[in-house]
């Protein structure tokens, strides 16, 4: 009975793969992957872009935050095959010859210690600054703390992360 089920699973395997094409950090990539592949797995295991970290794999910590079509999402809670035609930006794609102002600000303000959460913090930081700029709202320290609700850091106590994002916001 069990092996019959396994055989059935193998049988359907072929049509449980999808060829997905997306733009990652400005480059078009295509891969044939199982339909249940998470974007975090796609980035780390298929593309070897290991800057996107997986801290919890349960949508809580935000270490895996990347941008899809310009908006922050948790890549551990996104299916890769749903992103055919999408534009994805990871931490590897934010520097443009020089470090991004958000990266510089984390460096200048000692916004990281072990660095595990930092890729997600930077991607979330860029996203919130872009949104607040677009809507003309002021990104206060309070607002930054509220916006960081989905990003957990176990080292810094957040104070310098908030300072870093404020600093970068003034320069972006």
């Amino acid at each position, binding site marked *: 009975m069990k092996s019959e089920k396994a055989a059935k699973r193998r049988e359907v395997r072929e049509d449980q793969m999808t060829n997905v094409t997306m733009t990652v950090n400005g480059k078009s990539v295509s891969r044939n992957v199982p339909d249940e592949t998470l974007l975090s797995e796609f980035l780390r295991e298929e593309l070897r872009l290991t800057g996107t970290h997986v801290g919890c794999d349960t949508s809580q910590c935000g270490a895996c935050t990347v941008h899809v079509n310009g908006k922050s999402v948790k890549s551990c*809670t*996104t*299916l890769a095959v749903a992103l055919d035609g999408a534009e994805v930006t990871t931490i590897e794609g934010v520097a443009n010859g020089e470090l991004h102002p958000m990266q510089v600000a984390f460096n200048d303000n000692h916004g990281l210690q072990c660095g595990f959460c930092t890729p997600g913090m930077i991607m979330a930081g860029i996203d919130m600054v872009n949104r607040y700029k677009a809507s003309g709202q002021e990104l206060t320290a309070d607002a930054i703390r509220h916006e960081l609700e989905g990003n957990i850091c176990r080292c810094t106590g957040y104070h310098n992360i908030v300072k870093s994002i404020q600093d970068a916001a003034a320069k972006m």
Partner: protein
Amino acid sequence: MYSTRYHKPATIDDALAALGAGDEAKVLAGGQTLLATMKQHLAAPSDLVDIRAIDGMSGVTVQDNILTIGAATTHAEVATNADVRQHCGALGQLAGGIGDPAVRHQGTIGGSIANNDPAADYPAAMLALGATIITNSREIAADAFFQGLFTTALDENEIITAIRIPCPAKAAYAKFNQPASRFALVGVFVAKTDMGARVAVTGAGEDGVFRHAALEAALSADWSESAAAKVAISADGLMSDIHASAAYRANLIGVMAKRAVAAS
């Protein structure tokens, strides 16, 4: 995660066909609940039918004082939509308080309502505003839609396509966050509507979201904080868990109702 087969239909008919063909197919919207459930092996759908590419499934329109919100409209879109802000600001504020920015960029109103988590925010708004849930085959009043923990009136393979909301004269939502999950420990949505005052409570009921008859009666007679404060809130039928006792939740219902009326 168990293997599954992904579909991205462009029409409702194709979506229904894919749902009917799979032996255990499920609708996928923002995935912010369903993908987590699959990772925990609490769900193993044979097929995922992504409804986000279906024409007309997302967006907000307003006509004759009635808001219509597509089922695949994200929390972030509802929170920032100008029509929502103008005609039902409380709903925009509620949507902007769900989870965190990344969750709001993906999670959808239809997904939240179909899931009917006993601590979710949207179900309280739907009940208090007297919303109508529109599916591929029928229209269901919110009062008949929410039927208990994670249980709704939806049939198997029925797809929510939109939600229709009559704009209230006044409304507000007050949420007391459970400090770890940030879901509602207790959330109270109050609305002054053509049908009188309507008050819905999430996070507290043993059977999920519910309307509070005593608060509704008091606020229909007198829409004021002091009227809400005079209502004795019973702990009968309320949840008790490690986060809060039923009595604590009962007290919070009164406090949140007052705060909501004050903010309306």
